[in-house]
């Protein structure tokens, strides 16, 4: 797969540490919701670093690709992407990549999305793909997030979850919850899953994305709740984001 050049056409801060980068990519072959791209940065001395980022935008005919990047304080690539990159700059990318962690509009089963932190990004692409396909397929999203101000896409999620035939949205705060929130802050556990996710009897396909430890514990809880392991698709991301 070849490297393509994308031009930054818009930047939008989702949170104080995360930025959405909109790229116009010539000859983009379109993508499927849930896929990712590899981004390569090359220094003047030839040193290069490659990181994988999930695509946040739905498949579209405009050859636009949106990435939402969370800044890691010890990161090599994310500080540049979230702080220095400007509209008009170019980025090298390879993709779309990965045919496993994807949702396609012809899937008819109930869909359970479970995000840990910035693991929301590929799941948002699935929600947006559902909307843009005019689909009313049954979706639920459980979004585990540190605190309210760390939520990505808040306004858009609000609108989508208030619509008829909506995506049922539940936030699970792990450190700080809004005042009067019904549940004290804490990790996603069996009771959260039982109260907010599809019953395993409906045989939903579950997409779980987040840090490896989050995905590991959530997938185990889903299996313990009676979900079939072959209906659970996971995407883990590591603290460093990969290789150089």
């Amino acid at each position: 797969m070849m490297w393509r050049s994308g031009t930054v056409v818009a930047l939008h801060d989702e949170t104080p540490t995360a930025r959405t980068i909109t790229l116009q990519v010539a000859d983009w072959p379109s993508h499927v919701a849930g896929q990712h791209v590899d981004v390569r940065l090359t220094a003047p001395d030839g040193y290069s670093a490659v990181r994988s980022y999930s695509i946040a935008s739905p498949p579209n005919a405009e050859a636009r690709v949106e990435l939402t990047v969370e800044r890691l304080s010890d990161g090599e690539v994310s500080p540049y992407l979230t702080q220095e990159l400007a509209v008009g700059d170019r980025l090298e990318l390879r993709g779309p990549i990965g045919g496993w962690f994807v949702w396609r509009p012809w899937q008819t089963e109930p869909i359970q999305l479970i995000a840990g932190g910035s693991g929301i990004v590929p799941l948002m692409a699935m929600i947006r793909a559902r909307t843009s396909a005019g689909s009313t397929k049954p979706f639920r999203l459980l979004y585990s997030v540190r605190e309210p101000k760390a939520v990505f896409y808040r306004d858009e999620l609000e609108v989508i979850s208030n619509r008829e035939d909506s995506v049922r949205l539940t936030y699970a705060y792990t450190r700080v919850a809004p005042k009067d929130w019904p549940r004290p802050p804490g990790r996603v556990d069996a009771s959260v899953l039982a109260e907010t996710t599809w019953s395993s009897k409906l045989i939903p396909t579950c997409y779980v994305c987040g840090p490896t430890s989050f995905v590991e514990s959530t997938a185990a809880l889903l299996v313990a709740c009676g979900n079939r392991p072959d209906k659970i698709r996971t995407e883990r991301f590591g603290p460093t984001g990969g290789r150089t």
Partner: protein
Amino acid sequence: MSSPNYDYLDGNAAAGELSKVFAVDITTAAARCAECGTTKCLAEARLYMHGPGLVARCPACEHVLLRLVNVREHMFLDVRGMTYLCLDASHSEEAS
């Protein structure tokens, strides 16, 4: 939160590197572990990317399924940990 046991990703994350070698996305192929016989999608393997290349291990027994290592202008691909890869031929024409 981070634990030495959580230093791996999913095989899915290897799709970009593997696209340097394979014309189709092999992470969606079923891979049979040569050690324990478990057959799962390569995207479900445990992927380790800390070394000079990538290593995919069986999610059931941790046996090494695949290694792809870059050494200067050469790439070394070792797939002896898999008995076979079963690809879905009907999807091979899909844009990827």
